[in-house]
């Protein structure tokens, strides 16, 4: 039997990816350019007995998905810039209380209301530093409609596996463009279930590290009673200020991601075997970069691309290795130099980092990147 195909927007694909991953609760508040996710979920979730709720604002939406997740649902919210800002306190709550959830944020012009219909990549730092305090951060930046579908599934898997909020951040171009998508069969892509308790309710602790860095999470309503708080907590979930416990718990929460970077970080290497001029790109900008790299190659320049698929955790190891063997690194991004800073940190002066930064709501075109590639001597 031939596979089902469709011609979809990135946002529509994201919603279908969530459904494939078993999402059965969506809490949201509509905002351009992410609203199509909510539209599709509002149509599809009732058909499978799931719940769709439009809350009074983005804060309420984030609170709703955290609550639903604690009750055993696989949950999604979608938003854009200003909505992401509003959700930050509760994203931090999700991090410290270790509640799996997926936050899909379409990057539009900012700060504040900015440019609602214009593309941007200026939320990538907000994905890591938007909420205060030390916390793990996972953020995926897809570059096509098919990849948006697949990365949303992976986001659900990572959030369940590491019991933490995961962000998917396409830019507006990827979110709104349409491409052909081939739907995988059921079972073709792995779907990771939540780790459930193996002990009876009276022995259960929600943060019991004898089960490892990612303790099983019981669903409220299933007979397991436990305490959830935004305060630093002990293994039983109740607040504590005991120094050694707080230190160990904070370190464990960050370690969930840091110790598993190779399991989380994904990237694409394009023409890197003999690369002299390295272009690093993510999201829709990587499509311009690939076009530019191809033209540069035709003109005899040994250009290649490292495409970031997982923005956080950042692919430090890979960039460090590449920086040691190229003449320069070109980074096109629709912000004023966010990834650029990370590249400079990783390159440690071994290669110059040349940025192309656009915040005017226009995409970075291949010619701009080609010109910058030629500046590398």
């Amino acid at each position, binding site marked *: 039997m031939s596979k089902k195909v469709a*011609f979809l927007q990135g946002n529509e694909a994201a919603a279908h990816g969530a459904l494939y991953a078993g999402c059965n609760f969506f809490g949201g508040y509509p905002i351009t350019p992410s609203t199509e996710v909510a539209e599709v979920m509002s149509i599809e979730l009732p058909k499978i007995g799931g719940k769709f709720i439009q809350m009074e604002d983005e804060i309420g939406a984030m609170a709703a998905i955290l609550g639903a997740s604690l009750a055993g649902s696989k949950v999604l919210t979608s938003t854009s810039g200003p909505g992401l800002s509003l959700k930050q306190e509760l994203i931090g709550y999700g991090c410290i209380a270790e509640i799996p959830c997926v936050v899909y944020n379409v990057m539009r012009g900012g700060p504040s209301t900015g440019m*609602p*219909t214009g593309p941007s990549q200026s939320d990538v730092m907000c994905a890591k530093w938007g909420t205060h305090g030390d916390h793990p951060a996972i953020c995926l930046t897809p570059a096509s409609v098919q990849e948006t579908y697949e990365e949303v599934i992976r986001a659900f898997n990572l959030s369940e596996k590491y019991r933490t909020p995961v962000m998917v951040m396409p830019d507006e171009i990827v979110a*709104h463009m349409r*491409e*052909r998508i081939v739907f995988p069969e059921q079972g073709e892509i792995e779907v990771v279930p939540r780790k459930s308790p193996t002990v009876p309710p009276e022995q259960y602790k929600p943060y019991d590290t004898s089960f490892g860095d990612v303790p099983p999470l019981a669903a409220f309503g299933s007979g397991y009673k436990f305490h959830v708080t935004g305060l630093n907590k002990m293994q039983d979930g109740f607040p504590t200020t005991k120094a050694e416990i707080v230190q160990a718990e904070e370190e464990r929460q960050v370690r969930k991601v840091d110790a598993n970077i190779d399991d989380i970080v994904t990237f694409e290497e394009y023409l890197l075997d003999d690369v002299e001029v390295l272009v690093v790109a993510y999201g829709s900008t990587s499509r311009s970069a*690939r076009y530019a790299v191809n033209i540069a190659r035709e003109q005899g320049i040994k250009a290649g691309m490292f495409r970031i698929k997982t923005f956080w955790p950042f692919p430090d190891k890979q960039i460090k290795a590449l920086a040691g063997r190229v003449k320069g690194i070109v980074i096109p991004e629709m912000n004023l130099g966010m990834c650029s800073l990370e590249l400079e940190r990783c390159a440690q002066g071994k290669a110059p980092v040349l940025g192309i930064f656009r915040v005017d709501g226009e995409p970075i075109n291949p010619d701009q990147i080609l010109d910058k590639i030629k500046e590398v001597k």
Partner: protein
Amino acid sequence: MSRYELRFSGAGGQGLITAGIIMAKAASIYEGKQAVQSQSYGPEARGGASKSEVIISDGPIDYPKATTVDALLAMTQEACDKYTHDLKDGGILLVDSDLVKNLPKGNFKVVSFPIINTAKTDVGREIVANIVALGAMVALTGQVSRENAEKAVLSSVPEAFIELNRKAFSIGYDRALAASA
């Protein structure tokens, strides 16, 4: 590699994004090619210049936006003024002759006929002007077959409006061929 770029432009609310989607769907679902459709529009729901771009290729498409446009539709003077600057030398420019009076200078093949009026009088409903325009673009560009484009149109509209859209597509296709002959 073959890369063919189309731009559908006009005012928000004229259905040009839909026309672009159907063109891309015809290419990628029915014609067996690859296609990407993207759009840009202002914050207004109606009015304001709006454009929808479609890239068609035999192979993978990287940059999803237009670089130099092979064929452009302008349904308003504003869109024609704003969006024809990167139309390729020798490219195709289709305009609504009632609404676009000042044509850009350049070596283009200009095809013009009263698209909206054709929808109103010949098809019977102004609302399908975008499908008349789509039929014309399919005829002028030859990127997808008439049959595949028609399939894409009919699979994209509500059941009750299939005949209306079939007629709009067909009239647009034939008018464009007559106007460019």
